[in-house]
C-alpha cells in the first residue's frame, strides 16, 4: 500500500528521519513518538508538503513521478491548521472539491456530520480553534483518498466531534482507506478494529 525507498529527511543538515526500506499494508496505524521525534515531518513528507530524499509510493503511485495522481489519493489534516482569515470555509471546501474531485453528496455529509454548516459561509477569521479544526477534518476526508494522514486529530475537538471522527475513520477504513494517525490522546474504535502501532525513535520507524 505505502512503500518507502531510501527515504531521508534533513533539517539544516541534521538528519531527522531515515527509512531505507519500509512497507505498510491497508490498515489503521497509530504513529507514536516523543515530541520532536519527527511525526509531523513524516506526515508532511508523505503528504508532499515538504521535500525529502528518496521515494514514497502509495498504491503504486510515486510521489515524485506522478505528482498529481498521488495527491488525489493522499489526504492530510494538519495538527494545528491555519488558513487565510479572509477566506470562508466554503471557499476552501470548493477549492478541495474541485481539486480532489469530491462529490456534492460527500461534502454535504461531511459538513452535516461535523456540524459546521452554521458557520462555514463566514470568514475563517471569526472561527474558534475548534471550528478551524473541524473544517480541516472535513477537508481531510474529501475526495477519493486511499491514504489519510491525521496529525493530532483530537486536539480542540468537542466530545461529539470526537465520536463523529471515530465513526468516519471506521467507515473509511472498511471501504479500504489506510490511516496514519498521530495522537497523544486515545482513540477508541470498535472491538474488531485494532490500530497497529508504529514508533518513531532515533530517526527510524519501528513496528511495535
Amino acid at each position, binding site marked *: 500500500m505505502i512503500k518507502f525507498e531510501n527515504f531521508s529527511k534533513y533539517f539544516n543538515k541534521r538528519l531527522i528521519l531515515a527509512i531505507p526500506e519500509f512497507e505498510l499494508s491497508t490498515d489503521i496505524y497509530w504513529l507514536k513518538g516523543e515530541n520532536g521525534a519527527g511525526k509531523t515531518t513524516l506526515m508532511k513528507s508523505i*503528504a508532499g*508538503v515538504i521535500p525529502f530524499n528518496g521515494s514514497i509510493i502509495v498504491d503504486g503511485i510515486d510521489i515524485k513521478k506522478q505528482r498529481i495522481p498521488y*495527491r488525489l489519493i493522499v489526504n492530510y489534516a494538519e495538527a494545528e491548521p*491555519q488558513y*487565510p482569515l479572509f477566506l470562508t470555509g466554503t471557499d476552501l471546501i470548493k477549492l478541495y472539491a474541485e481539486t480532489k474531485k469530491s462529490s456534492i453528496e460527500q461534502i454535504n455529509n461531511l459538513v452535516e456530520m461535523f456540524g459546521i454548516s452554521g458557520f462555514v459561509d463566514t470568514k475563517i477569521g471569526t472561527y474558534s480553534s475548534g471550528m478551524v479544526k473541524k473544517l480541516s477534518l472535513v477537508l481531510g476526508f474529501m475526495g477519493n483518498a486511499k491514504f489519510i494522514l491525521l496529525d493530532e486529530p483530537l486536539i480542540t475537538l468537542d466530545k461529539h466531534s470526537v465520536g463523529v471522527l471515530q465513526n468516519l475513520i471506521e467507515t473509511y477504513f472498511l471501504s479500504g482507506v489506510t490511516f496514519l494517525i498521530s495522537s497523544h490522546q486515545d482513540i477508541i474504535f470498535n472491538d474488531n478494529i485494532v490500530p497497529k502501532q508504529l514508533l518513531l525513535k532515533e530517526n527510524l520507524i519501528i513496528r511495535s
Partner: protein
Amino acid sequence: MNNALSKIFVVKFYQLNAGFFLFIFLLFFGLVNIKDVINLHYAIMMQVTNKSFFTLIASSVCLLYTIKCLFSVLKTINLPENSFLYNLQGLNKFNIYKKFFFCQVSIYLPVLIYSLIVVYVGFVHNQILLSVFFFFIQVLLIISCVLIYSYKINSTWKQSILPEITLPAIKRKSLLMYLYYYSVNNRKATFFTIKVFSLLLLQLMVFVNSEQVSSENVCILLLFIMSAHSLLPYYYVRFFETELPFLRNLPISVFYRYILYVFTYSLILLPELVFLFWNELNVLGSSTLFSIYFFGIAQLALFTGLQYLKGVTIERYSTIVLGLFFVSMLLLAAIGLWYLLFVELLLSIFIFLAAYNKYEINTEQS
C-alpha cells in the same frame, strides 16, 4: 526588553522593506550624477523651507511614511506570536512611551535625517517660520505614533480607536484570485502605497516630458517601479508557503501554481497599463505599451521564481532585486525590450518549475 522590541519592530521593518528603501535610494540618489545629486537635493530643501506649498507636500510625504510605520507596528503587535507584548502593560506609562519612542524614531530615521537636514538648511537661510513648522510636524508625527502604540498596548479591553477597514466579502473566491485578495485584505497599506507611488511616478514622467517619451525611458522608469513592487512577490511567496501550505497536498500542477502568480501580476499591473494607454498611446503605440506591460509581469515572475531557489533569504532577495535592476538596464540597451521580456519570462518559468518542489520555507524568515 529594548533589544527584543528592536528585533520585533525595527529589524523586521527594515528587512521587510529592503526593496522599498532600495527603490527610494535609487530614486533619490541614482538617477543623476553625483555632482547634480547635491544640487538637486539642495534645491528641493530650499523649496521646502521657502514656499508653504512645498512644505505641505513634504509634510504629506512624511505623513505617508508615518502611516506606513504605523500600520507595520500595529500589525506586528496584532500577530499571535507577539501577544506577550501585552506584558508591557505592567510598565508605567512613561516607560512605555520611552520604549515606543525609541522604536518609532528608529523606523522613522531615514525620513527624520532628511527632514532635519531640511530644517538646518532652512535655518541657515533664515527661513525660520517654515523650518520650525516642518520640525514641529516631525515631532508631532513621532509623538502621535508613540501615543497610538501605547494606547494599543494598554487597550486590550477597549475598542480600537482606529476604525477597522474591511472590504466587502465576495461570495466566490477563486484560487486564481487568492493573491489579489491577500493584497487588498492583509497587505492593504503596502499594496495601495506601492500602487499610488507607481502611478505618481508615471504621472511625473508625463508631466515632465510627455512628448519626448521613448520606450527605453518608460522601461527604465518601469524598472524603478518594479523594484518597489518587489515587496509583493516576497509577501506572496510567504503567503502561499506559510498560510497555504496545504496547497502542496492538492493535485495542482506546478505550472498552474506559476500561473497563479503571473495572473496576479497581470492584474495588479493593469492600472499602469491603463495609465500608459491613456497618456502615451499616440507617442509609443499599443505594441510597445503591451510589451512594457508584459515586461513588468515577466520581471515580477522572475522575482518570484528566484525566491524558490535554495538559500534565498530576504537579505539575498534584496540584493538580487538590486542586481537585476542593473542587469536588466544593461540588457535593455543591448538586446531590446521584447528579447529581454522573453529571456526573463523563460528564466522565471525554468527556475520556478525546477525549484518549486525542492523548496522548503525557512521558518525563521517566515
